[in-house]
């Protein structure tokens, strides 16, 4: 039983991280129907900016005196940075292709992904970058079960950010505008919603969430690496589709399921096939429910 609960905790932590990344995919998909392959790289960039800032604070000596404040500052600055970053990427690589076929934009995204991960490698070096100090390494023991402070922090942050996002999308004017743009760009522009601005905003929010995930991954695993965006990117994409792409609640659910399946697959059956289990769950869910768990009705003409 202890073992089960411990694995459950591991699964929730991993699932939370996937969910945060998946949200970026799903939001972008919701408004412009683009699989943004470069999203994983934005997540990695977030991890790098986080380590740069935290090392900088450590170098100045603030980390000793105000650790929480530094961490908060790092989160806010990184999320802001990545938001600007993603908007830049969107303006350069996706906006000119908005009127073209979706595959053209997909390819542009793929090129951008290769470009960004190699850009990170060249500016930040090929070696892993370690997060400074031993932040929050300990944990709380309940008998045989250990819950790390970082695990708590990840789950807490994830819930907080998801909650905030839900309020933003469903309770505010901006969220309404986003939903309107997602449904019909022409109609929404008739009621004076600037679709360009909404699309940029969507990229910015998605990137902010990915950046937060990036820092948490860096803290939790202790280091970042230039190619760390690729695999989580694919997993998060799978999570977004599993939940029903374009659907925010679906993405959270999908992320959690993928994370759980991986952990339990590795914990109870075999580590080498854990990705196979994740994909089999994905395929069988989509077989019986072709638009994902919380899926919408897709119309026919999508390529």
């Amino acid at each position: 039983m202890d073992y089960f609960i411990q694995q459950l905790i591991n699964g929730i932590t991993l699932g939370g991280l996937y969910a945060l990344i998946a949200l970026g995919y799903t939001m972008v998909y919701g408004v412009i129907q683009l699989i943004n392959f470069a999203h994983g790289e934005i997540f990695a960039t977030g991890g790098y900016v986080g380590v740069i800032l935290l090392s900088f604070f450590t170098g100045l000596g603030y980390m000793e005196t105000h650790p929480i404040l530094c961490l908060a500052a790092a989160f806010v600055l990184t999320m802001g940075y990545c938001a600007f970053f993603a908007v830049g990427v969107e303006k350069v690589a996706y906006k000119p292709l908005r009127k073209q076929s979706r595959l053209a934009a997909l390819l542009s995204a793929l090129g951008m992904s290769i470009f960004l991960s190699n850009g990170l490698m060249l500016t930040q070096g090929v070696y892993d970058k370690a997060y400074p100090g031993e932040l929050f390494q300990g944990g709380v023991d309940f008998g045989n079960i250990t819950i790390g402070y970082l695990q708590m922090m990840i789950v807490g942050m994830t819930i907080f950010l998801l909650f905030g996002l839900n309020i933003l999308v469903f309770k505010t004017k901006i969220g309404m505008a986003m939903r309107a743009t997602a449904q019909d760009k022409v109609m929404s522009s008739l009621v004076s919603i600037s679709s360009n601005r909404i699309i940029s905003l969507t990229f910015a929010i998605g990137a902010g969430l990915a950046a937060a995930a990036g820092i948490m991954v860096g803290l939790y695993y202790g280091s970042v690496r230039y190619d760390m965006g690729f695999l989580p990117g694919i997993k998060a994409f799978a999570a977004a589709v599993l939940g029903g792409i374009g659907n925010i609640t679906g993405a959270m659910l999908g992320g959690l399921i993928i994370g759980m399946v991986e952990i339990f697959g590795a914990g109870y059956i075999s580590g080498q096939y854990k990705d196979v289990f994740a994909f089999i769950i994905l395929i069988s869910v989509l077989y019986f429910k072709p638009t994902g768990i919380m899926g919408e009705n897709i119309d026919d003409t999508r390529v």
Partner: protein
Amino acid sequence: MIQEFKKVWKPYTIGLLWLLGLLWPLLGIHPDGTLSFGNTFTVWLYIAAGTTICLLLYIMNKSGSLNAVSRPLAGLQETVGQASAKVPNWVWIVILLAAAFCYPFFTGRYAQDVATNVLIYVCLGLGLNVVVGLAGMLDLGYIAFYGVGAYTYALLNIHFGMSFWICLPFAAAFALTAGCIIGYPTLRMRGDYLAIVTLGFGEIVRILLNNWMSLTNGPNGLLGVKPPSILIPSFQGGISFEVFYLKKLHFLYYIALALAIVTIIAVRHLNFSRIGRAWESIREDETAAELMGVNTFKLKLLAYAMGALFAGLAGAFFCARMRFVSPESFTFLESAMVLSMVVLGGMGSIPGIILGAAALIVLPEVFREFETYRMLVFGMSMVVMMLFRPAGLIPAKRMGKRGEEGE
């Protein structure tokens, strides 16, 4: 020219400043608590200077300042174009074929190796074109069939000593079967759901290849695969046949060329047959196609199977050429690469895909000179090519509006 420049300078300047702002945190904040601006600024200046020159050239060309150079060139192009239009199609094909045939006589090993790679990817690209370009199904796990073909040949050759030529139909058949098995459950899905499911299947196949130790020898790969062979009659002491292994690169090049030509002819025939038209009708509007009596399910499965078949053939050859096969050759990135060739070249257009395959294989080799900057430049050039030719280098003539929209 000034007019043109006025239109773009504002977004361009904002873009450059934006880039400076993004670059600085990555380069200018140091872990010892110091900040620097010098190195960021230098890097930025290089980028700014490079892009400004490109922009100026672009604007000058657009506004006609370069007419002195470009007009005679355009005139020349015109005359050559008119002259070439008079030359019938087959002459061009003959010229190309002759060039391809003579190619190994003038080139070294490296060029032949790259050319062989290009030809393999031409087969793959054309196969994927059947699925993506003709039938309009986005497939991100295509490389799995390539892997099935490669492992089929490797296993049959190692365990049963079967020769390359006998294995080719087997490889094709196995890949085709795999295509049907994977295709059957996925065809209910559409669009991006299909994409992720195919991606999943592709990964499952790769992980199986990596883990099934007793069959595939896992990550160690299979060694000792024989290259293609031919039988040479020898007349010493009666007639007997000698097995001659085609190890040399130029032999392999010719086999690849033959394979690519067969694929081109086959895909062309498929494209302009009843089946091809039915596929295109599915791509343009599935519901309408079904209404007109097209058996969409069967045809989609057929598209999947045909695509897999060509990948199987290419895979068998790939394995014979490398004389070694390991799961590392069948990652998701390869699938993405093949898809890029199809989209970059122009979906549904055979010359386009040939060009796309050539571009995406030759470019990283050209960029070898950049060493570590190689993939950076490659990624950038992919984006730039897409921005300037979003419908592909040579777009297909028969491509409807509907399939392009994707609302």
